[in-house]
């Protein structure tokens, strides 16, 4: 892991004539001086983060016979992958592929619907687009939990109960408000001059969207992709209520079911939790910068 994990803003430093015996960067910023108290605090949090992860890994490798007697903090005496086998043989792949289908569909729907929406909200100022924007603004705080009962009725009437679509469609709808806000925030920063230049060249709105807006909004778009994918990945309530059989079961619900299926075999349950984390951890390793950068940008200033 290198510096580039956390993009450093360039240019903020000014040249100073200090002799090069020590790196002149060293003393410039207050955060760069050692702060023992903060360092200790960060170390304490590191321990808090790592202990549960360590306990989970170690317990998931413990043989079933020792599971109830051992303390999960003790390293397993003779590690075994039995529990991982058990989980993989209990339809784990099916759960994973369902979740992947849900995540990809949700991201696709959200992008296809939100990009034109944000584009219109930023580029036109008529009553209707303003009203549309305000609708989503209000939607930001509405919890999905609040509407599961009527959605349940709606899904049943649409004959979608117990299908993946029953999970995909509402999840996408509830990922929209934040996505619209993020995209509008990004698109507002595109200079008006660029739009005018393209308009003078006689470009159609569609061409402007694809050649100017989307390329310049990459940061916002990747944040939206991450946000909606995480929402789909995390979703629990919609699958819990709108699906029932094994066919459309997603990962979160599968984990929940393993708890009763494996019963007191806690190491097997923990092995399933570890396995569920591996795919997204792999994504994290590959797309670390986009992921961290996208989420870091949410705070604004």
């Amino acid at each position, binding site marked *: 892991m290198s510096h580039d994990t956390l993009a450093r803003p360039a240019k903020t430093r000014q040249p100073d004539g200090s002799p090069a015996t020590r790196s002149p960067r060293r003393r410039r910023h207050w955060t760069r001086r050692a702060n023992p108290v903060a360092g200790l605090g960060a170390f304490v949090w590191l321990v808090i983060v790592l202990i549960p992860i360590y306990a989970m890994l170690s317990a998931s490798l413990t043989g079933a016979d020792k599971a109830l007697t051992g303390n999960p903090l003790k390293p397993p005496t003779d590690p075994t992958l039995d529990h991982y086998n058990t989980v993989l043989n209990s339809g784990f792949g099916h759960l994973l592929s369902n979740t992947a289908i849900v995540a990809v569909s949700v991201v696709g729907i959200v992008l296809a619907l939100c990009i034109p929406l944000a584009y219109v909200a930023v580029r036109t100022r008529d009553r209707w687009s303003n009203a549309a924007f305000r609708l989503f603004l209000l939607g930001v705080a509405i919890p999905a939990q609040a509407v599961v009962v*009527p959605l349940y009725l709606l899904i049943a009437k649409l004959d979608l109960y117990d299908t993946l679509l029953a999970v995909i469609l509402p999840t996408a709808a509830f990922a929209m408000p934040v996505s619209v806000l993020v995209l509008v925030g990004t698109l507002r920063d595109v200079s008006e001059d660029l739009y005018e230049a393209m308009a003078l060249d006689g470009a159609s709105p569609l061409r402007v969207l694809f050649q100017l807006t989307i390329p310049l909004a990459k940061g916002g778009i990747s944040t939206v992709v991450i946000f909606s994918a995480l929402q789909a990945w995390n979703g629990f309530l919609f699958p819990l209520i709108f699906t029932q059989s094994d066919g459309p079961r997603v990962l979160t619900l599968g984990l929940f079911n393993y708890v009763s299926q494996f019963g007191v075999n806690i190491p097997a349950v923990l092995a399933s939790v570890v396995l569920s984390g591996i795919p997204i951890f792999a994504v*994290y390793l590959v797309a670390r910068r986009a992921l961290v950068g996208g989420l870091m940008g949410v705070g604004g200033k």
Partner: protein
Amino acid sequence: MTVTVEKTPAAAQKEQAHRTGRRAGRTGRPHAVWALPGVLFFTFFAVVPMALALYLSFTSWDGLGDPRPVGLDNWRKLLDDPRMTQSLWLTVVLTVASWAFQTVVALLLGVWAAGRQRNRAILSAVFFVPFLLSSTAIAILFYALLDPNFGIIQKDTLGSQSGAFLAIVFVGGWQFIPFHTLIYQGGARQIPEVLYQAAAIDGAGRYRQFFSITLPQLRHTITTSTVLMVVGSLTYFETVLILTKGGPGTDTAILPYLMYEAGFKTYDFGYASAIASFLVIAATGLSLVLVRLTGFGAMRSTREGM
């Protein structure tokens, strides 16, 4: 302490061009119809259900036959239900406690991690790992680790009210602090270094600088992070369902859990809808306040004047 940035001539000119440009013609501007698919989709799957929830709150419905109108019965029940009062209070306390815990830790970690030393980058990457697990996975993990026979603490933590409550606050923090740390890290990176240099020249120490520069400069970041925390606190539903099932007794039954039980455990969908409508009304009020606080509604570029 605020720094006012004078509008440069170039910016003023740009604004002028902007204003005339709007008038100059609609060429190159998309038609509002482009927004229609998104609006319709959102209306159908989010707005209509909200209205439907309000309608169902005036009916009695067991999920099978047709909803039967019963007037204000559910709402009267809502006002009289001691569980509702307890649940509302619990939701508020849980939100406030989680906010305090997460904000303090995330703010300190974020400011610390905004430094640029190598070990900070590595640690920040480790800190982020809990956020990669789903809420369900995390709740199951802690359910196992808090098990009185198997777990780390060989005590029935989840069996006592304070234990269960603290466990939910802690687990929520464990999951979401990485995310908020990242937000604060991004915010702290944007604080101009000149401010610290000036303060250092004036002889302000590290702690003075933190309270007089860092905190005031991060106020927008604190607002954003708080908004996300408050809105997100309702996603503790999974954590509650898996860790405590609302127990011991009803001591951790927050509003969404109460609604879930009323609807999908006792099949009293009318009453569940009344709770849901209450949630929607509370959330809408909250969201109006948030729009005010954050200035999301203003159609301005956040970079204007930079």
